[in-house]
């Protein structure tokens, strides 16, 4: 499968990344190479084979619905680039 510029730019947009021209060229080339290599899996017969989603057999792990105070707000906010009155601060989203 041949990958074009538009596809790479669309993917970058979905991933919230901006690519410079030389990066676009570079990533397009890398993506092409890696996907060409990855094509090898299409030669594996997977008729009647299920998907492996996780490695161990754990399924729907439940715990008691009890309240634990793990982290306090102040401590969590210490890493925030911008905060105000105990909340994360972002630019206005609704006019």
């Amino acid at each position, binding site marked *: 499968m041949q990958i074009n510029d538009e596809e790479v730019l669309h993917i970058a947009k979905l991933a919230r*990344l901006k690519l410079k021209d030389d990066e676009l060229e570079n990533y397009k080339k890398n993506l092409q190479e*890696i996907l060409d290599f990855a094509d090898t899996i299409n030669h594996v017969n*997977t008729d009647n084979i299920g998907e492996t989603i996780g490695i161990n057999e754990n399924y729907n792990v439940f715990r008691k619905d009890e309240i634990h105070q793990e982290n306090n707000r102040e401590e969590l906010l210490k890493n925030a680039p911008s905060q105000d009155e105990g909340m994360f601060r972002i630019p206005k989203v609704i006019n």
Partner: protein
Amino acid sequence: MELYEFTVHELIEKLDKKEITSSQITESYLKRIKEKEKDVQAFVTITEDSAKEKASEIDEKIKRGEKREKLEGIPIGLKDNLCTKGVKTTCSSKMLENFVSPYDATVIKKINEEKMISLGKLNMDEFAMGGSTEYSYFHPTHNPWNLNRVPGGSSGGSAAAVAANMVPWALGSDTGGSIRQPSSLCGVVGLKPTYGLVSRYGLVAFASSLDQIGPITKDVEDNAILLNIITGHDEKDTTSVKREKVDYTKSLVKDVNGLKIGLPKEFIGDGIDEEVKNALLETAKIYESLGAKVEECSLDIGKQALAVYYIIACAEASSNLGRFDGIRYGYRTEKFDNLREIYINSRTEGFGPEVKRRIILGTYVLSSGYYDAYYKKAQKVRTVIRNEYQRLFEKYDLILTPTSPTVAFGIGEKSNNPLQMYLADICTVPVNIAGLPGMSIPATVNSEGMPIGIQLVAKHFDEETIFRAAYTFEQKVKFREKYQPKFKN
């Protein structure tokens, strides 16, 4: 002999006999770090003051006649993707350059409960994506055996620091070989435990269905001691498994009599360096001479496993790294007029090129139109690979392969060729795909004096057989007695 040259089990003995103090050990390692860090550059953060303080507190306590716990006062180094409360956890990324975790990872909690002393946080490829530690945002780490070579990766700082005697042992993480490959390239012992044996809580996630934390140590005995500490079910990691606690030091016996070892012919074929191949065949001979039954077998899944790995790992990474948005923690751009620009510019400026490459690949294989062809197909092939291993383990107790197809390569040699770099993971990746335990142990050195490691893989949760076989081999070849890194240029 300097204290930093001893293994942990030797240090424990000396501490028990009161021949030495924790401060003496800690000072010895800090002195060694001062001597060697300019050449090796294994660390991101060195916690000298808190290490000294903790050591002297422990020594005071012992002076008062109180009992010392087994590992109390033993230093350790930590890969910088393990969350440590109060000390920066950077993942060697600009994105987390100033991040201080508000909580400890479960493994950190466990080593703190043992009253071990952290010497600092160790360098890695950014977000554990890479096999050379060249993709660290801060600086590359150098291989103590030859400073112009890479230490491997992504736990390159951890493996190099152990090899250089800058820490007595370290914790790393392994998603596709990130513990075993640098251990092999640096001539130390590294174990990736079975998926689910060690809690991943507080390990900054790369690919959640593949990631596992494990010990990197000077010898096999130390490895068993450290694994004993970090295993166990954790409510905070729903993929961690409830099992009875095993004492892995009980497996440190010199006996491989009757053990059945499979030697897959595909892993001694094309693409494997001649000297690595010879080291592997020599290892097989040694096991036979010790009473094991080594038999050639077939495991023709290397390339498929690598393809599956790069699809699944990148898909999971693109999802896991979605959390870095410049809002709650991590790097935030200065250039924005609206929320969307915060997301885009923070991520564009905060992530390095390899991380972006993998996010793009991961987003691609998960995007509509390609999901079935790549991601879903990869998950099915993952089942095929698991079944292949299962088939082999009906016949064999262990599978023996090289850890890495080559010895350590030169810094800069592969960093511009992602696919070449990915191919270097061909021996280790299949083990993560199947969730199996795998250990790299040093076998010998090549004609240039660079270490060659071999890999032992066992059934799920059968680390005991790995320890038994690794210990027996180690006692026979005595790698550490024969070879030491020379720090040559």
